[in-house]
């Protein structure tokens, strides 16, 4: 029984995987960034499909709006937009592919052999309200501490980036 | 008698050496410190014999407990029996002689004496420890000073030798460590030798642990074929270093083989005794034959040490009371003798600047005192009655002979054969250095021993003679202790 939802799912899935795959194989760096963008959008789509709208939104905002843009900027900064990427040695490719395949196979075998525990919990709606309430809660099942931690992390990352990227005078050594 | 004196005296000396300002101070402080230690050792001897005479029959005297790591049941447990007393005495003798012969060290004098005294500290601590952990601690303390002594003040391929020595000895202690931990866990979390000796350690565990411990300590005492650090180490070390190395360090191993491996694991000892005997008989003969071909005086003494120390191990392997007593006597005797031998070699080398036997000759003419000492020590080495070597070797032979099956008989005879080979190489060495025509006219200018060298030699010769002429006191010291050990092992 093929429903629309199913078709959408498969479309999103194939978009994600194809773009992801192309993103790591194309030899044009700019295209790689664009493929990555679409792959991420595909994932956002899947979040939508799963009815996790908040996450989907964050995904689009942070990834598509933030990280990919950052990456594209840095591509421009390193002035390599037009060039083709250097080829990897075939030996490395084969080994990597082999290792990756083994890892994938192993994971999938374990996943499919595993019978997941069927839960009977009542689902907690993933509304923004619920999310926000939990985020600010300092008690049981609250996420205030991680929130603080991540803020410190972002602060530190910011400081780090500033120091590194704004190096005063590039002395020629 | 507070045994902590034996640790405190060297420790204080070492600290004082570190704090002293100039060379002269360093030397005199070290000498004073070693005299004090000698005095303490003698006080210990008299206190010990006094206690025994007063009828104290406890296995260990002057026991002390101080908790160190309570949660691991590691304690400072000190105590002495006759064996420890004898070894402590030996250490103090060698130390004072070592301090004296190094009187003219110019390079980094302070460090040199500091390390020397640290080495002695390790030895004292080792001999009086009754807790395996502490024992191991002191054993390891004595490794690195040796390394530095050889590496910094040595000669020849000193770095190579120092490295080899340190690594082989550490390899040995690694095995000891494993054995020790094995004991600790099988016997219910205790490192205490006295407590462990009361425990019944399962036979199959003994079969595993005994070789670890015995081989580990065996490396220290040049168990064949793990002896190769001996020739290199001895030959590269400075005089006092060689004296300590052969005189004391090798005894640490022998003591450990007996007190730890054999005493605590009697079943293991019985199981492996034949292998020990074979190895030590090989070491005795093979060491002697290898000595025969050496041309460097230090190599001669080094290989002969391998051969002589073999008697200690042989005695232990024989597992009879007399043989063990003999083994212990051999340790004491060899300690004094070999220290003296190295001292003499050092004196000769300081003057002739060679250690090659064939480059010397007729030294008796120019340095009668030194050559006389050389004669004494040589004769001691080949087991002349009246000197300590004879007493020890004969006791080993007598003890070994009590095992009356063919295997032990043949091993004993093989070991006894070394007395001939020993005579050959000792006479060859003495004959070529002291006797014969004077090879080098330049030697006529050489001076005989200075006061410090004479004093050092006299102290050690006194020790050798004290054992050689009247062995009774040493026998009385060692035999009851050996008896305790044999009681535990069972057998003759």
């Amino acid at each position, binding site marked *: 029984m093929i429903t629309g939802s199913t078709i959408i799912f498969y479309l999103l899935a194939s978009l994600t*995987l194809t773009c992801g795959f192309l993103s790591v194989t194309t030899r044009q760096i700019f295209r790689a960034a664009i493929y990555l963008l679409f792959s991420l959008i595909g994932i956002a789509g899947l979040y939508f499909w799963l009815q996790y709208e908040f996450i989907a939104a964050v995904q689009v905002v942070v990834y598509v709006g933030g990280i990919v843009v950052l990456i594209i900027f840095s591509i421009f900064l390193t002035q390599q937009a037009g060039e083709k990427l250097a080829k990897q040695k075939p030996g490395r490719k084969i080994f*990597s592919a082999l290792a990756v395949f083994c890892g994938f196979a192993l994971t999938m075998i374990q996943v499919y052999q595993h019978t997941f525990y069927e839960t009977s919990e009542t689902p907690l709606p993933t509304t923004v309200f619920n999310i926000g309430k939990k985020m600010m809660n300092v008690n049981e099942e609250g996420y205030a501490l991680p929130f603080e931690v991540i803020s410190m992390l972002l602060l530190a990352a910011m400081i780090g980036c500033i120091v590194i990227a704004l190096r005063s005078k590039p002395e020629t050594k | 008698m507070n045994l902590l004196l034996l640790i405190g005296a060297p420790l204080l000396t070492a600290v004082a050496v570190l704090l002293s300002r100039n060379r002269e101070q360093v030397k005199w402080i070290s000498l004073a410190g070693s005299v004090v230690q000698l005095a303490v050792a003698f006080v210990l001897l008299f206190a010990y014999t006094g206690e025994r005479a007063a009828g104290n029959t406890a296995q260990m005297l002057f026991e002390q407990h101080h908790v160190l790591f309570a949660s691991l049941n590691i304690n400072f447990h000190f105590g002495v029996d006759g064996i420890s007393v004898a070894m402590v005495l030996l250490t103090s003798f060698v130390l004072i002689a070592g301090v004296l012969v190094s009187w003219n060290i110019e390079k980094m004098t302070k460090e040199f004496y500091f390390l020397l005294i640290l080495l002695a500290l390790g030895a004292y601590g080792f001999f009086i420890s009754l807790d395996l952990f502490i024992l191991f601690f002191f054993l390891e303390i004595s490794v690195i000073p040796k390394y530095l002594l050889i590496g910094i003040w040595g000669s020849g391929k000193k770095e190579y030798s120092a490295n080899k020595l340190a690594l082989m000895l550490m390899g040995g202690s690694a095995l000891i460590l494993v054995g020790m931990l094995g004991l600790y866990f099988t016997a219910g979390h205790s490192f205490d030798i006295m407590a462990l000796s009361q425990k019944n350690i399962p036979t199959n565990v003994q079969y595993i642990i005994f070789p670890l411990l015995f081989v580990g300590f065996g490396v220290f005492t040049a168990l064949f074929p793990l002896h190769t650090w001996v020739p290199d180490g001895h030959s590269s070390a400075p005089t006092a270093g060689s004296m300590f190395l052969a005189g004391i360090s090798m005894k640490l191993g022998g003591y450990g083989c007996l007190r730890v491996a054999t005493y605590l694991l009697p079943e293991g000892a019985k199981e492996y005794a034949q292998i020990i005997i074979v190895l030590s008989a090989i070491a005795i003969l093979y060491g002697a034959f290898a000595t025969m071909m050496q041309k460097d005086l230090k190599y001669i003494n080094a290989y002969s040490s391998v051969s002589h120390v073999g008697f200690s191990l042989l005695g232990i392997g024989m597992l009879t009371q007399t043989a063990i007593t003999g083994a212990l006597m051999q340790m004491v005797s060899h300690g004094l003798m070999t220290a003296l031998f190295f001292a003499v070699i050092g004196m000769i080398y300081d003057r002739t600047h060679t250690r090659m036997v064939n480059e010397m000759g007729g030294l008796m003419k120019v340095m009668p005192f030194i050559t006389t000492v050389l004669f004494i020590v040589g004769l001691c080495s080949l087991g002349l009655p009246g000197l300590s070597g004879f007493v020890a070797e004969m006791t080993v032979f007598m003890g070994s002979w009590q095992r009356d099956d063919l295997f032990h008989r043949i091993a004993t005879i093989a070991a006894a054969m070394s007395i001939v080979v020993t005579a050959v190489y000792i006479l060859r060495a003495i004959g070529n250095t002291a006797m014969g025509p004077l090879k080098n006219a330049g030697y006529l200018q050489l001076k005989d021993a200075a006061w410090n060298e004479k004093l050092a030699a006299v102290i050690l010769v006194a020790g050798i003679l004290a054992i050689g002429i009247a062995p009774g006191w040493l026998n009385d010291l060692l035999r009851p202790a050996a008896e305790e050990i044999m009681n535990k092992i069972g057998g003759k």
Partner: protein
Amino acid sequence: MMEPGLYHLLFISAALFFIGVYGFLTRRNLITMLMSIELILNSVNLNFIAFNKYLWPGKMDGLFFTLFIIAIAAAEAAVAIAIIINLYRSHQSIDVENAEELKY
């Protein structure tokens, strides 16, 4: 075709994960390696969400995990890009094969 469910999502996520790994292992450009890392993190996010949705909807552990991972990914990417740019300044290259001065 089957009704899409947990296993499908897990397959996608695992596939994406290993695609990312493959990219990380074979890409010679540092920035593309960084992109592969993003793929890896996204696959993990998908996993969390899928588990949260299908197995443990009672709490929002998976969801929050995803949320924080996204934040971390941003921070990590920022620092990584800063470093890469710095490296580019001194090496004049962002080929990973050229950054192998430190070895053996």
